[in-house]
């Protein structure tokens, strides 16, 4: 084999390697991006589930405060890949039935007899990621994903407005 032939073969291998790597690297980066997307989706979904459950299991007027507390607990910091998870919109409560204020026939005082509140809570959370390559196809540098979940309200309003509220 002449010197020229040896160099030609080496050059061919080098070219194949370079071309191969130039295919492999973007594919690898795309896979990293997809992993990031799936991880973000799952994290957002899990937090959204916790948020909606917590929002549905307490007094309706404090639903958003409880949701924010869970968000602060479960998504306390943003990293280079994920943004902090936030509420896409305030928690929506669809109340179908709740105990109403009544008038005590004996004392003539208004009171609420208490009872379960029926309906469902709907929470929507969002997370933003900064992909490595996907933005080339998408056009925007950041991708935002939303998750929406609902949960039946499981709260029993205590009796209120009577002088002897707490009974043994």
């Amino acid at each position, binding site marked *: 084999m002449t010197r020229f032939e040896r160099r030609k073969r080496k050059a061919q291998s080098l070219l194949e390697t370079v071309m191969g790597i130039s295919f*492999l690297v973007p594919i690898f980066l795309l896979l990293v991006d997809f992993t990031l997307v799936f991880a973000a989706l799952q994290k957002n*979904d899990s937090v959204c589930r916790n948020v909606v459950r917590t929002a549905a299991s307490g007094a309706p007027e404090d639903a958003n405060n409880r949701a924010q507390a869970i968000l602060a607990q479960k998504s306390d910091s943003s990293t280079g890949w994920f943004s902090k998870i936030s509420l896409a919109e305030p928690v929506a409560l669809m109340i179908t039935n709740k105990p109403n204020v009544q008038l005590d026939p004996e004392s003539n005082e208004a009171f609420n007899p208490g009872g379960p509140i029926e309906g469902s809570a709907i929470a929507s959370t969002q997370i933003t990621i900064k992909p490595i390559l996907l933005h080339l196809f998408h056009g925007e540098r950041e991708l935002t994903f939303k998750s929406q979940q609902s949960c*039946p309200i499981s709260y029993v309003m205590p009796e209120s407005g009577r002088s002897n509220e707490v009974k043994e």
Partner: protein
Amino acid sequence: MRTIRKSSGSMLVLIVFLLGIFVVFALGAFTVNNFLFLRTRAQDRADNLALLLASKINTGDRVGQMNELQARSRELIFNSRERIADCHGEELDMLSPIAEQLLNEAREGHALLERESNNLVSQICKEVKESALAHNSALSDLGIFKMGGLLTEQARIERVELGSIKDIPSNAKSDTVFEGLSEFDLQQNHSHKTNGLYRANIDAKIPPPDGDLSFKISALAPNVRGTCSPAHNVNAHVFTRMDTLIDNEEGQPCHPEFAPCAVQVHCKMPTTLGIKGDYRADLTFVSTAATNGAIKTE
């Protein structure tokens, strides 16, 4: 003879081969990951569904009120019977007819209560059944997920069972004002010695001659110092089955002896694997929920 290997093109083959493995492996990983993700979501849906069905059981504290009515009815009958004995014992025979009339009214009232108790159980079964069947009929094709060779459909309710939760007492209390009755309850193990609450799912019969009457007291979390237990998901192993409401996605005749306080939902998610759908299996999810406790404290 020594074989001379051809080295040109080997890198290209190697890289294409690696690329293929890489892509196949990644697709497989994403599919499995998505499958697990969908499974978690389906379990959440089953939990929500169980909670929704459970909250229908004690709407308006109807089970709690029925337990209280049963307890008060047995006290009334027991007390009326004692008054008759008093009339005979204290030479107040002229009051005997009134005492007997009061006893008869109490017994008639109890017969009415028994009918209403049965109606209540039927009504609970009907409402829970309708709600569960409505869920299945509202499912659409939107929830179908397909990726690679994996296809999952929306979770459907396959079976719904009504029951109660282990070690939960009744919300009604055995009143110590009626000493004879409260002592009888303790002897017969109808009530708890520590808190006086009736045991759950018992026929709390009273002493003869009124032992022919049945007083069915159901399980329900009692109201503790004004705090009512809300509807909540519970572990499946604390559930005690009473009757099956839905089986194979079809409503079944159901009439448990006592009012239920919990519901167990069995869902299935049809899943197909393979390019031609070669492997088919139904993933099952079980979720249990208890209804809200008694609202009122007597």
